């Protein structure tokens, strides 16, 4: 089970700061979340892609790909995108 860190602004949907979810990649994780907490996917995604304001931290990987693999005990964080100079 992956450990999903729920952004504080949507914790009212989950009632918890962390949720354990099964799934082999982030897309499946979000689908699982949506089943358990209806409405959450719309906050995180836009037209089937990760919302453009967000990026993922999947253990040490920083990515915007929903296909990113997750394993048992993988941490998934939803973070703002970063630009660099």
């Amino acid at each position, binding site marked *: 089970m992956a450990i999903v860190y729920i*952004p504080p602004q949507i914790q009212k949907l989950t009632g918890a700061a962390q949720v354990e979810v099964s799934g082999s990649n982030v897309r499946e994780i979000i689908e699982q979340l949506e089943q358990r907490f209806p409405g959450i996917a719309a906050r995180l995604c836009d037209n089937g892609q990760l919302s453009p304001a967000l990026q993922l931290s999947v253990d040490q990987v920083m990515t915007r790909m929903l296909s990113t693999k997750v394993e048992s005990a993988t941490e998934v964080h939803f973070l703002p995108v*970063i630009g660099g*100079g």
Partner: protein
Amino acid sequence: MSTEFMTEHSTEYKVIGTRPVRHDGSDKVTGKAVYTDDLHLPNMAFGAFVRSPHAHAKIVSIDTSQAEDMPGVLATCTSADLPDPWDKVDDLGEGCVNYAHLSGNVLARGKALYKGHAVAAVVATDSHLAEEAASRIRVEYEPLPATTWVLDAMKEDAPLLHDDLITHTLDDAPAKPSNIESHIRFEKGNIEEGFAAADVIVEREFKTATVHQGYIEPHVSVASWNEDGRLKIWTATQGSFVVRQQMAALLKMPISQITIVPCEIGGGFGGKISVYEQPVAAVLSRKCGRPVKIIMRRDEVFEATGPTPGSFMRVKIGATKEGKLTAGEAWLAFDAGAFPGGVIGPGCMCVFSCYDLPNAAVDGFDVVLNKPKTQAYRAPGSTHVAFAAESVIDELAVQLDIDPIEFRLKNAAVEGTRRVDGPVYPRVGLVECLEAVKNSEHWKSTLSGPNRGRGVACGFWFNAGLKSSVTASVNPDGTVTLVEGSTDIGGTRTSIAMQLAETLGISAEDVIPQVADTDSVGFTDVTGGSRTTFATGLAAHEAALDIQRQMMERAAQIWECDTGDVEVREGVYRGNDESLTFSELALKADSVGEAIIGRGAVDPQVSTNAFAVHLVDVEVDPETGKVTILRYTASQDAGTAIHPSYVEGQIQGGSVQGIGWALNEEYFYDDDGHVRNASFLDYRMPTCYDVPMIETIIVEVPNPDHPYGVRGVGEVSIVPPPPAIASAIQRATGIRLTDLPMSPPKLWRAINNGE
């Protein structure tokens, strides 16, 4: 030289860690290097902009006829000449852009949103004529109320810039539009409990002024949109591929029709990623059938390109009397400029990033107002928040009477520390940087004399990975031609070539690096995010391994043995009792088969996590409020320093930019929302007479995600100077300044009020 090293890596490298002369150096000291403005194409024409004189105004009408009637004037353009933009957000690697906003920034649509906003443009046969013609384009405006201070723009009754801007938040979306573009929140632990456990709590408010990246080369492009439909643009950019991506979207044409040629670039620091004049030069070229050059004047650069946000910040941190941090809270409001897409995200992520903070909450707001659209500037967002957080940390150290380095060591982020935004750090080098400063001769020296003080501060920046591509061809003389997509702003041809050379066991001089256009190399993200030596270096390492594999095959073919029987060490290939050096094998290989070409294409999706700790001694003239930097030492974790001279150079350059930000740089806005100091005379960047030598300590805690341990070094050095200097001023005067810049009148006033 004053450089010290504190290193953990193997010192067996032959090339890495040496200081070869950079490959493009001779051209740059003799004036031969070709920057965009040095191009003079046959039949070239010159463009000029018409810009809004108002900070906020409805554009009622634009009359270009008088300009068009002038002999020598070839064409004009307005936003009507750009395709209707896609309301689409795209990922430029280093942040996202909404093309509707980008198009509206390139040429104003309906409203001018800041003084200097481009409204129209004209092209003529010479640049003076273009400028005259621009003055004859008549624009009728209906001025609107404007706002240039972030807290004003957040007010309910503030003049709205965009009627349809609904705050982007993971929370419930608000019903009404506002100037608040986004609201981010992070929480960790329980801050009520955290603050309850604190013996000392410090809470302060901070402000920072808008500052500019200040690159010496103005934005400049030459566009040639040919009759066959192909568009070629020579431009000063940090990323030719993201220029291509933006051009294709703004002009609604396939990327394959566009070639971007990156010329040598005269500085960027984050400000040369977005397009400005490129689409306009292209449209004018299409209209007049000639190549068109546009170079911005310096006042245009200040008024219409890249500043970094002004900000308001409130930071509260608690600690026990033993010096353990218990909780932190931050409320951050950054201005994004006239269009959404600021740097509040990284600001929120960086505010407490140096510390192991068990309980924290961070709120961040990105706010649009009537200033130029902000852009990244070296560790974007991190300098702002470090000024606030590190100032509070220092004040806690003072109140607890704990040495400021010891206080930081007690709380420093280490491998395994969970950041406030969630992720856990891998191996990082903050403690090593703190120890390096603590052990420095500077820290151990005594600072005496009146009105003098010493300050220390930490800084963090993520550093990016992202996509990089190279190809490398082996020449029969044993050299390797390396073709890369990363524009070279500060010696990266060499730092990348050195990694290829190290892997192949040849010398840096035997690599011939070339920065290629977008038709000649694979996709490469911007030279920014401290990523180039890391990621493009990784691509070069991959290409070198590819070459090595082919060379081993070729050796096996020559020696008539199995490839598996060939081995290579430090550039010498051995097998079947024979051996050949790389260059001997290159010559033989050439005569027995096809060319040997290596490829490297990478997309490392990691942050390499750079930390820096700076130490500064200042002297304050209490009668004038002027601060003199007496001595400066900067330590930074480079992972591995590929070319130490250029690592030092990045540290020194970032430090001095940070000193400028700390002491004097700012946009002065008048009541009409006009910048009053849009020149290098009055926008006071440091000259060499304003700073001392910058002593550097390169800390090397190798990055586990890179074969040579590179972390990247470009950005983090700008972060610590403002809080370090603020703390030094506090030690010198007893006064804690909380507004940037800490300019002489401000400090004088504070000293006077204190008396």
